[in-house]
């Protein structure tokens, strides 16, 4: 009886501790949304979680202060493009590395591991000059090219490779016997069976691109080309001080949809990150 009571007590203590610990993880989101509805005066007054006056105009001004709708769209289509391209390129390379014995595979793997570990900050200077030489400054090209071929693309390649390695090889042999080419085996057998891996790659790649900051900061200069993170950091007055209520309203608009998707698909999303981390 006492053992059971200790167990219950133990659990209650844990739960209370976890609840307290959860505050700094949850509160910022609530505070962000609440701040987005406040007026400038209320922002600097004594703070309350529920705004005394709900100022919905903030969410209109967000769109008039800078081309926020356009910027939102930029982030969306860039992330989608990066995701599709990464899925294609990474699954091709991952397949070859997992399944075809070819001279040079080992060396290629070694280089890719290196690319995985080296931060973008190391190569960003030469890449800037390269992009400039290509005449692609202030375009979205570098925001597509650098992530697809950078460390994030390598993560995707390794994830796909890992998954392909675990697929039963006899299925692909059967495909070859049935007359498929290498490409056919990849497209018609390996890919349809890799949906979990493709979903994981899609999730982490999309989020990575969506949250990308250094590259947009360096390559973009016109407001209507900005992506979301860059736009968010740009809600400042003429003195460079943040326009808190607008900034928080815009941040809510950027973060809440992702959070909702996360809450719906949390299991799948968390697993995707676990997969990509384990292999690293």
């Amino acid at each position, binding site marked *: 009886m006492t053992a059971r009571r200790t167990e219950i007590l133990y*659990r209650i203590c844990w739960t209370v501790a*976890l609840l307290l610990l*959860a505050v*700094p*993880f*949850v509160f*910022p989101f609530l*505070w*962000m949304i609440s*701040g987005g509805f406040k007026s400038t005066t209320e922002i*600097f007054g*004594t703070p309350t979680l529920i705004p005394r006056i709900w100022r919905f105009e903030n969410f209109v001004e967000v769109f008039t202060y800078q081309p926020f709708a356009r910027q939102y769209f930029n982030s969306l289509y860039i992330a989608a493009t990066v995701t599709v391209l990464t899925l*294609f*390129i990474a699954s*091709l390379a991952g397949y*070859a*590395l997992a399944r*075809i014995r*070819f001279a040079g595979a080992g060396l*290629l793997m070694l*280089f890719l591991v*290196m*690319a995985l*570990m*080296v*931060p*973008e*900050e*190391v*190569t*960003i*200077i*030469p*890449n*800037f*000059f*390269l992009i400039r030489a290509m005449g692609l400054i202030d375009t979205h090209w570098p925001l597509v090219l*650098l992530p*697809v*071929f950078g460390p994030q*693309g390598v993560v995707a390649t390794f994830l796909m490779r890992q998954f392909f390695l675990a697929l039963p090889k006899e299925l692909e042999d059967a495909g070859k016997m049935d007359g498929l080419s*290498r*490409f056919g085996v990849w497209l018609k057998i390996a890919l349809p069976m890799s949906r979990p891996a493709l979903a994981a790659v899609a999730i982490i790649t999309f989020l990575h691109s*969506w*949250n990308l*900051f*250094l590259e947009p*900061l360096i390559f973009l200069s016109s407001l209507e080309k900005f992506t979301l993170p*860059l736009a*968010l*950091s740009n809600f400042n007055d003429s003195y460079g001080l943040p326009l808190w209520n607008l*900034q*928080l309203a815009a941040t809510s608009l*950027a*973060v809440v949809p992702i959070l909702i998707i*996360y809450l719906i698909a949390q299991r799948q999303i*968390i697993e995707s*990150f*676990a997969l990509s*981390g384990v292999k690293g």
Partner: protein
Amino acid sequence: MAGKAFRDNAARAAGAPWLTLKTREMLEAWLFVSPTLIGFLIFFLGPLVAIFYYSTTEWNLLSQQATFVGLRNFHNVLLENPDFWHVVRNSVIFALGLVPLNMALALSLALALSRPFFGVVFFRTVFFAPVVTSAIAWAIVWKFMLQGEGGAVNQMLAWIGINGPNWLREPNWAMAAVIVTRVIKMVGLNMILYIAALQSIPRDYEEAATLEGASRWQVFRMITWPLLAPTTLVIMVLTTIGSFKVFDHIYQMTGGGPENGTLVLAFYIYQQGFKFFNVGYAAALALIMFVIVMALTLVQVMLRRRDME
């Protein structure tokens, strides 16, 4: 040899493809990896080699001319400019603060949340939520909450009678604030890696130890912790490298300030390269960062190898 040549001819005559199956397979493989390979050469290996070149030049902004200056950039970085050592100090403090805090918290959370019980999914979802949030958004909200006057954090502290500092305006507090908010942002990732590792440990070990009378702490100390060692090593290296890469968080929360109190390596490279246009100097910094990251990776590989023996 003659026999083989004859066979090849015969094979061709029989309608077989011109290339041997083996050669074809090889070509196919390279075709499959070619997009990755080409991108890798252009956007990674090329630039990596190029920073060696850039780091030995001085860039003239007006004429767009590069002058070869040998090792002077390194001389400047390491000996002339006191900023560099200040930045290294900041980066080390940042790493020393972030890595242990992150890992200890991640492991504690994982231990609490690796077994099914009421609320596990809720808590996992909560602790992981900042990971999927953009670093800029996270930094914006925390900067808002950490204002000296009217900030939510100080307001809460006031309830329990503490007069909070102006967090982001004092160098030491700013560093602490940046570390803690970064830990909260990223701890969920390490937490799920630990949970995955914990769940792959067979329960038999713990049950056997419990039957032999081991306490919870002994089970952890003697069984769980040693079995987690490979995971701990990977997490430690990844988190350390991650701490040297931190950029957007610093950019948005403090901009490297106050008084360069949170000026860390990645931000310093950005500042030198893209704000002050000291391209050669920034390239030298990038090269130093490359060496640090490679060294950390090597340490991990070596430790892992020793582990396996």
